């Protein structure tokens, strides 16, 4: 049996002080984020939202709407696929330029390129960082202003952001595979592209493809989200229906979105399982 005096939590005081400190730090955060949960249960809002959510069942399923839905879904898929194709076209040369794997000056120096060769790679790496660090939806917003509403902006945004991601990851894959065949070819005097095609690519292709398929799956989700700034596809239709308070339409579009993500997920898992 514990004596009553020992039943108190010995760490109570530090814990209390830590909690107080956290609360003091959070206070300005609460002010800045204007958090106000009461808005959600205000009678007006509650009635509006109740009507909106009440419209969710049954989901809209008349013929015209389903046709529109199918078109928007196909458009989303096409945006993701076309965007990925362009991204791949951009990423391949950038990855070749950024990677150390095909460096000639590294051959004689145990895998470390000369300093000037590394310095020449840095601008390319910086470009890749900028391309992928600006979120795709920001690119989409910019392209919507530059080329107008519609899927073109979405395709370009995906192409640019994903070129940055693919370029970086491809360059890393090139450096991580077994480089001995490539080095042998380079030392025997083959041009760099031939050394890449016959020495490096056979080793790296599986991993590259499987990463690209995974990114394609992400691109589908991204293209739906980008629709909210006017870049076409399912997202743009969801945004329109939301603004019109059409609960039934929103419900069936969200269901379609979930189904699409589920299908893309299983397709990509199957492909990746085959490739690796």
């Amino acid at each position, binding site marked *: 049996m514990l004596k009553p005096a020992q039943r108190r939590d010995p760490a109570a005081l530090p814990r209390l002080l830590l909690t107080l400190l956290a609360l003091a730090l959070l206070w300005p955060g609460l*002010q800045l*984020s204007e958090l106000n949960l009461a808005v959600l249960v205000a009678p007006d809002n509650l009635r509006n939202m109740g009507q909106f959510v009440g419209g969710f069942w049954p989901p809209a399923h008349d013929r015209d709407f389903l046709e529109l839905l199918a078109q928007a879904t196909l458009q989303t898929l096409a945006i993701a696929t*076309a965007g990925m194709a362009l991204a791949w076209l951009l990423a391949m040369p950038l990855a070749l330029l950024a990677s150390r794997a095909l460096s000639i000056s590294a051959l004689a120096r145990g895998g470390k390129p000369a300093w000037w060769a590394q310095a020449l790679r840095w601008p390319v790496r910086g470009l890749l960082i900028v391309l992928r660090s600006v979120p795709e939806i*920001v690119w989409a*917003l910019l392209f919507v202003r530059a080329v107008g509403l519609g899927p073109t902006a979405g395709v370009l945004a995906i192409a640019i952001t994903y070129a940055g991601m693919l370029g970086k990851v491809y360059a890393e894959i090139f450096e991580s595979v077994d480089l001995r065949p490539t080095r042998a070819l380079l030392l025997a005097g083959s041009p760099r592209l031939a050394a890449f095609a016959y020495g490096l690519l056979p080793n790296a292709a599986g991993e590259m493809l499987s990463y690209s398929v995974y990114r394609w799956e992400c691109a589908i989700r991204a293209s739906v*989200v980008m629709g909210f700034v006017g870049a076409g596809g399912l997202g743009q239709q969801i945004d329109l229906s939301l603004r019109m308070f059409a609960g039934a339409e929103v419900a069936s579009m969200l269901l379609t979105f979930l189904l699409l993500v589920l299908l893309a997920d299983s397709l990509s898992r199957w492909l990746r399982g085959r490739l690796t």
Partner: protein
Amino acid sequence: MKRPRVNLGNWLILLGLLIAVSASFSYLNLDLAALLQGDSPTQMARFAQGFLPPDLSAPLLQQVARGALETLAMSAIGTLLAALLGLLLALPAAGRFGGLAQSLTRFILNALRAIPELVWAALMVLAAGLGPNAGTLALALHTTGVLGRLFAEALENTPAEPAEALRLSGSSRLTAFCYGTLPGVWPQLLAYGLYRWENNIRMASVLGFVGAGGLGQMLYVSLSLFQQAQAATVILAMLILVLGVDVLSNWARQRWVQVH
């Protein structure tokens, strides 16, 4: 010499890929060549030139700093709310209150997680009005789904013996949880929470596009008013925020997370 075996399945996949890509381009009627012809390159160049140089005047920088702080606050409060709610839902989702409660909470968590933050934000702007409040709630809802599931898995994988020992020696369920289970899973919960916070900072900076406050809203407004120089400053601020979070989290991970 034996010829390498040709795998028919792989060629079929390649063919399917080519068909999918060309079908996508033709379905969208993408005319990329038109973007490089006529006066559209000059128009785009003029649009791009508007961004240079970024507007670095003091009042705008002050506004941008406030926007960045607002973004940080949205992500922090959203993640914190989500962690609290997630822990609350993780208990039934880990099977502590019977099978029915488990499947029900799992369904709720999956539904919360499946809808992207931006869609939640658009919904919350309708429900709670424009401003950072909507963004905070949107982040909290989506992150609750993610953290609830991760927390539930952590709770399932933690050894049950310490809590059972406390229960057997007569402590209440709450005390047994606080002193028997929580100390064991606490570091893992904290790690998950911090990881989601990092994601949410990135997300919070773009939620404003649908009117949910932060840097995104500033960018949207300045682009709508054709103030490209101001927009460039906001984009720069976003870039600095994202890269800063990346560097900081990499550093913290290397410093504190041991590789087992």
